[in-house]
């Protein structure tokens, strides 16, 4: 009996010990478990949103002024973030931001216009979008004016862009009392000097961009967040965030804590999902069999929505025979896009209806049903492909297509080895081409960075390429008629560089039948909505005829939620599916069951 009593006592002790250590799970709102789709966890990285590997998590403890809806056509639709509201003049020359009146940092200090101004200053050191020191760059902010503690006005430079509001609202806000010391005294004067020209301006530019590394490496001792959560601790396996009691809308936030699990690859995320560990997971490529296994886990549900991205096969038109549009068309007629999608991305892709340069959903909105139907669909048609190849002068000998001079034609399709869906798609395409007497093979690159480097150096004939990156029509067509195809925008001037230079690996012609697609694309930045629609129509038709790429499949935003512990999930096709779950919580979704 004594032994039994001792065991009972030991068990009781152990139970109470577990209870003490497991106090988190006893919290009313529970622990919300997820992963960060944008990056893996690096426990040694600073708690700094300017650091690409930083230990901050967008929507949870890292906050932007507003959250983009990324709809089909409207690039300027946002949900409020640190900015409660905003106004912009019709030409977006001036944007006035009104901050959340109750917004406070996790240390209790209020979020002010000065924080936004400091954040903008820090963004200048990193360059790009609205905050660039390149004189004359389109859409650059020219003046930042604090109107009062909660209102700030940002004025666009003379070279206007309709992406200005979007870029301003995407500003990540950090506390001035933590990050302010990174901006040296006289920073704003230096910035003003940098916007000029001449040696003094160049020196000032150098001073500002020279701060970039210092900003990236800055490591605050603790997280000071204006978001719904603040980082409590982090280790290589997970980051734990606790609720920020000072968040401006704290009553809407139900989970007491958020646990962001680390992963080394997709298969680890699949295992998390199969075991039901994750309350939600952002877009993850999943094979059909794994998807069916994930669905079997109690509570797991799939939420599918629009994803403004498509996969394509891009040509280097500086290389023969891909300089000939008939060859590109022949290949388009030979590739069975439905089969490619079934092999490569059955759960997260839909076969492209045609090549327009735009994701099918956005294409329908931009071009209308009639406009889309007017484009050549490039359905699989071996006879048409043969005609196109003959028109290009290619010759067929002993069942194999050869170059016009009779030399062998070897098609090499390049993909990064780490993109399993692209590898499978490329293999499917080469099999289809081989069936038709075109000798084709897949060549992989060790990683994506190397792949992009080699692609930019013009070493590939053909390679996989992400396209249709909406909703901004400029961003969509910039993937086809931007720097990768020779059009460079420097100091507000658009120039076209020859193939093989300055990253021009697509090598397309500067004008086609009198149309300069790069110029039209650039004009999308400045055009009114009506004009944008007309330009998009022209570019879609040109893309469909000229095929700088063959659009293969449009991605589907496939997300996972588990209804066992929380409810209030976004519905399928909801715009918020394109945002982190932290933003869902800010919007009042996600309730404890």
């Amino acid at each position, binding site marked *: 009996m004594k032994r039994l009593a001792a065991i009972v006592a030991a068990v009781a002790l152990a139970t109470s010990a577990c209870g003490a250590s497991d106090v988190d799970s006893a919290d009313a709102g529970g622990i919300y478990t997820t992963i960060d789709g944008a990056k893996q966890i690096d426990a040694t990285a600073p708690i700094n949103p300017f650091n690409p590997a930083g230990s901050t998590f967008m929507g949870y403890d890292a906050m932007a002024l507003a959250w983009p809806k990324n709809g089909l056509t409207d690039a300027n639709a946002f949900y409020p973030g640190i900015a409660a509201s905003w106004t912009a003049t019709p030409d977006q020359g001036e944007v006035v931001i009104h901050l959340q009146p109750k917004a406070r940092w996790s240390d209790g200090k209020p979020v002010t216009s000065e924080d936004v101004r400091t954040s903008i200053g820090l963004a200048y050191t990193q360059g790009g979008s609205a905050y660039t020191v390149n004189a004359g760059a389109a859409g650059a902010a020219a003046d930042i004016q604090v109107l009062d503690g909660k209102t700030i006005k940002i004025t666009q430079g003379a070279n206007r862009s309709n992406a200005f509001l979007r870029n301003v609202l995407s500003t990540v806000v950090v506390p001035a009392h933590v990050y302010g010391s990174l901006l040296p005294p006289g920073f704003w004067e230096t910035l003003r000097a940098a916007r000029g020209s001449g040696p003094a301006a160049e020196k000032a530019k150098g001073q500002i961009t020279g701060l970039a590394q210092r900003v990236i490496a800055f490591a605050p001792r603790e997280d000071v967040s204006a978001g719904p959560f603040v980082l409590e601790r982090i280790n290589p396996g997970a980051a734990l965030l606790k609720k920020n009691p000072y968040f401006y809308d704290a009553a809407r936030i139900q989970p007491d804590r958020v646990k962001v699990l680390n992963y080394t690859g997709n298969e680890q995320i699949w295992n998390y999902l199969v075991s039901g560990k994750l309350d939600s997971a952002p877009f993850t490529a999943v094979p059909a069999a794994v998807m069916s296994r994930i669905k079997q886990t109690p509570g797991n549900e799939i939420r599918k929505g629009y994803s403004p991205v498509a996969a394509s096969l891009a040509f280097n038109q500086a290389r023969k025979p891909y300089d000939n549009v008939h060859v590109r068309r022949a290949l388009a007629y030979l590739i069975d896009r439905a089969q490619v999608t079934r092999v490569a991305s059955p759960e997260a892709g839909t076969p492209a209806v045609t090549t327009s340069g735009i994701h099918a959903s956005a294409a329908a909105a931009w071009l209308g049903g009639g406009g889309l139907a007017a484009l050549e669909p490039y359905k699989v048609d071996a006879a048409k492909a043969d005609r196109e190849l003959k028109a290009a002068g290619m010759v067929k000998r002993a069942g194999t297509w050869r170059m016009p001079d009779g030399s062998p034609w070897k098609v090499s399709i390049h993909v990064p*080895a780490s993109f399993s869906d692209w590898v499978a798609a490329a293999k499917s395409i080469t099999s289809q081409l081989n069936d038709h007497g075109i000798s084709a093979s897949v060549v992989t690159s060790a990683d994506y960075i190397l792949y992009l480097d080699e692609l930019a150096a013009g070493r590939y004939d053909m390679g996989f390429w992400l396209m249709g990156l909406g909703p901004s029509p400029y961003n969509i067509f910039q993937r086809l008629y931007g720097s990768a195809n020779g059009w460079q925008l420097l100091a507000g001037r658009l120039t076209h560089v020859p193939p093989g230079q300055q990253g021009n690996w697509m090598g397309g012609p500067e004008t086609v039948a009198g149309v300069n697609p790069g110029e039209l694309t650039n004009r999308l930045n400045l055009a009114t909505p009506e004009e944008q629609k007309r330009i998009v129509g022209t570019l879609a038709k040109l893309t469909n005829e000229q095929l700088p790429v063959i659009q293969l499949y449009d991605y589907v935003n496939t997300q996972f939620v588990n209804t066992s512990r929380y409810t209030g999930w976004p519905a399928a096709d909801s715009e918020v599916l394109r945002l982190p779950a932290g933003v869902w919580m800010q919007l009042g979704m996600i309730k404890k069951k």
Partner: protein
Amino acid sequence: MTLTISLPGRRDERGGRVSPRRAFWRGVGRVLRRKRGRVVGVAILALFAAMATVGPLLYPANLPRDDNALYAAPSLAHPFGTDFEGTDVLALVVTGARYVILTGLATAIITVALGTTLGLLAGLHRGRWDTVLMRITDLQLTIPGLPLLLVLSTVWKFESPLEMGLVLGLLGWGGVARAVRSQTLSLRERGFVEAARGLGLSSTHIVGRELLPSMAPYIAMNVLIAVTGAIYAQVGLFFLGVLPFESNNWGVMLNLAVFGGGALTTPAALPYLLAPLLAILLLTLGIVLVVDAMDEIFNPRLRED
């Protein structure tokens, strides 16, 4: 002199003289028959040799696909199921054997040729030769093979098995050179080598007729062990996805089964994962069993007759 298989003057059952070569092969036959596993080992190696030589001839250049049977389960038509494209997995394993085995052989030849030559030279000549060659060997042994291969793969596509074998061979000869040198240092003090030297026989004779035969078992075993090492190394590199894509490469198959098919998460792509694994396992087993037989063939102390 410890030449292991030299049986001149032996007579067959009918009393006739048997040539040394025939006596050797009879000895080999006896050793193999003594343990059934050794015969199995030879059969496995023969099977893989056949796969490498005639396997690709059994299938069309472009393997047929069944568009409606992606990741199909094993069946009579597809004993190991199909891959992500509906291609028979067995056909992939068979046609992929050539690259794997050729790489293994190329690696083994380079490893053993370089290692033996340098080890013999160092051990035989000693002095400065030994110092220089062993420092080079030490240097080679310090080169981290896998990281170097990962870096090399960014600039070299290793499209031919001979290229792959050359690199793996150049990275693997150090151990053999060290061991051969040790054996040479030991053997050169033995009476039969002293006698050969006393008779004024040339270095070529001493190396070719006195030292090498004594080291033959060790060298032969190293050939086979180098083959397995090369197979693991190249399959590993292909699995990591750093080498060029060939859908019938066993490492690529493993990679696609795990990362593309989710073979470690669901059973659907498991046969696609297991087929190349089984091939590697069988090939290794065959080599181990044959090494066991070779040990006895070349080592008179182990011989039971």
